[in-house]
């Protein structure tokens, strides 16, 4: 028998089978089920499932459900506030422990909160009502996004129904990254090659010495954006760095199961990336796969710079920005908004002086959360305006205005561009 990929191994174990093959339909047991504000819709569908039965609507296991408010914090409208209130009541009634409300001690973007709170474990099955749930593959989990009704079924039954075991694309990244080039540039370049649907229904497994040397923060960037190539999930084999992160940054104790691929695992496709020759990359409007080296779009006038999101709002991202902006000034032609990915990131960035560097340079440091990433509140764009952002999506209308444009880039490109008000190469 041929070997299994990491995904196959995790799914085999989660279904109590010795092995699973690509295309098998399985119902994996769920280790962690995450929702954000859209828990309000999940609750509605959860109650629908129980309707007409004599059963009490209780979730299968409250210790395995996480709910994090992040998309619209603090609430931007009475409608959101009312939804959040209903979710709070549900959390209390169902005794859901992993609840992260609008709070400065434990709040933040769901994906960041899950990773830093030690909820992610290698070898586990994680589902979330958010497409960027792929992020958690950075810690060796099989993690994927589902819709609200599907989550309601998970809350009721504890497993995901009708999952087709996906094929895997192996991406091998090798070589040392040049200064001011980072994980965001790797993933943008990959998406440019694969296209926005190139990995649809597939998993991307990341390998190669660049990945082995990369810290968890960088791996989170890669897996976060795997979904932008359509991937069901992205996954990095759990290793010493995974253990280091979980033990020392996420306070995880107890045994860890580092699942890796079998030597004879079958991949649908192998893609190689030479990290050493990579330049900073930019995804141009209105598609994440319109990727160009920064040199091709240098000089483009921009109006708003955004550093933040579940992709690039972590401590090392703020550090990069602070290093570039320290003692300098954000151009008066541009406004710069910084959204730390969580309050923990915010506090650490404050203690290290990064926030002061950024504010003194003229940036506006916002409260942690999704911020303007999805165009609901904070930092809207005017008609005809152009944003340069470290977020992960630039669909038309993504930041709330279909008459605006969004370019995506790394924190280094964003910060260098803040100095000039035009897209700029951080290497010069």
């Amino acid at each position: 028998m041929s070997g299994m990929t990491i995904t196959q191994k995790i799914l085999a174990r989660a279904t109590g089978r010795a092995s699973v093959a690509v295309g098998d339909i399985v119902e994996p047991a769920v280790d962690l089920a995450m929702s954000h504000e859209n828990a309000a819709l999940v609750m509605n569908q959860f109650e629908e499932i129980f309707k007409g039965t004599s059963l009490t609507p209780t979730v299968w296991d409250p210790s395995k459900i996480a709910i994090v408010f992040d998309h619209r914090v603090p609430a931007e409208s009475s409608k959101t506030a009312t939804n959040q209130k209903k979710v709070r009541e549900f959390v209390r009634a169902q005794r859901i422990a992993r609840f992260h409300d609008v709070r400065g001690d434990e709040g933040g973007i769901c994906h960041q909160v899950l990773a830093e709170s030690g909820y992610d474990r290698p070898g586990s099955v994680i589902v979330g009502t958010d497409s960027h749930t792929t992020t958690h593959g950075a810690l060796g989990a099989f993690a994927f996004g589902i819709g609200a009704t599907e989550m309601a079924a998970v809350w009721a039954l504890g497993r995901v129904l009708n999952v087709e075991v996906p094929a895997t694309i192996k991406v091998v990244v090798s070589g040392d990254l040049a200064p001011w080039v980072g994980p965001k540039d790797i993933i943008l370049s990959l998406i440019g090659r694969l296209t926005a649907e190139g990995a649809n229904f597939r998993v991307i497994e990341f390998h190669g010495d660049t990945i082995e040397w990369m810290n968890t923060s960088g791996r989170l960037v890669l897996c976060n954006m795997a979904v932008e190539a359509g991937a069901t999930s992205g996954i990095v084999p759990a290793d010493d760095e995974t253990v280091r992160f979980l033990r020392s940054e996420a306070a995880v104790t107890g045994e860890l199961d580092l699942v890796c691929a079998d030597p004879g695992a079958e991949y649908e496709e192998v893609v190689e990336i030479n990290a050493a020759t990579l330049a900073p990359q930019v995804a141009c409007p209105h598609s994440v796969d319109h990727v160009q080296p920064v040199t091709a779009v240098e000089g483009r006038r921009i109006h708003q710079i955004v550093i933040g999101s579940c992709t690039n709002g972590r401590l090392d991202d703020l550090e990069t920005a602070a290093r570039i902006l320290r003692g300098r000034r954000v151009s008066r032609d541009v406004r710069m908004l910084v959204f730390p990915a969580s309050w923990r990131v915010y506090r650490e960035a404050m203690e290290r002086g990064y926030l002061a560097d950024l504010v003194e340079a003229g940036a506006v440091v916002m409260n942690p959360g999704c911020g303007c990433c999805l165009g609901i509140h904070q930092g809207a764009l005017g008609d005809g305006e152009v944003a340069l952002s470290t977020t992960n999506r630039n669909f038309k209308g993504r930041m709330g205005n279909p008459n605006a444009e969004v370019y995506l880039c790394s924190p280094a490109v964003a910060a260098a561009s803040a100095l000039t008000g035009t897209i700029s190469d951080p290497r010069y």
Partner: protein
Amino acid sequence: MSRVVLVLGDDVSTDAIFPGRFMATVLPAETPQFAFADLADFNKGVRDKTITPGSAIVAGHNFGCGSSREQAASCLKGPDLTIVARGFARIFLQNASNLGLRTIICPEIEASEGDEIEATADEIVNVTTGRRCRVLPLPSARQAIVDAGGLVAYARELLIAERTVTL
């Protein structure tokens, strides 16, 4: 027979189908008012109910890419539309089958607004142009849920079977 009421290209995102700024609206009964909110004419047709139930949207590859928001499927299910696309993004396809929104995968579909199309199990005939295009089956994992009448009904049956045993 379905009338094609909207023709779109590749990579139609959930931000286009149901813009993020309306995401505080979650209940399926309330979402259709924001379907393609930035396409004024189409959206007006949905709001004013001038689009006949059973009408079709025709699109290219990767329809529904982007977020997992289920509103993108429920807002099209409300006016009882059928989506014919060259391909669908995974999460959208799952949400659609879970909610009973009809999706047809038709890799060579070509149609213009106003065309009449007829779908059978294995092909779509564009009655207006005479062109016939093959239809790919839904992934079998999805078809089982469609056959059960959607995920709520499917999950409810399992729930009754499982929780009754353990009581």
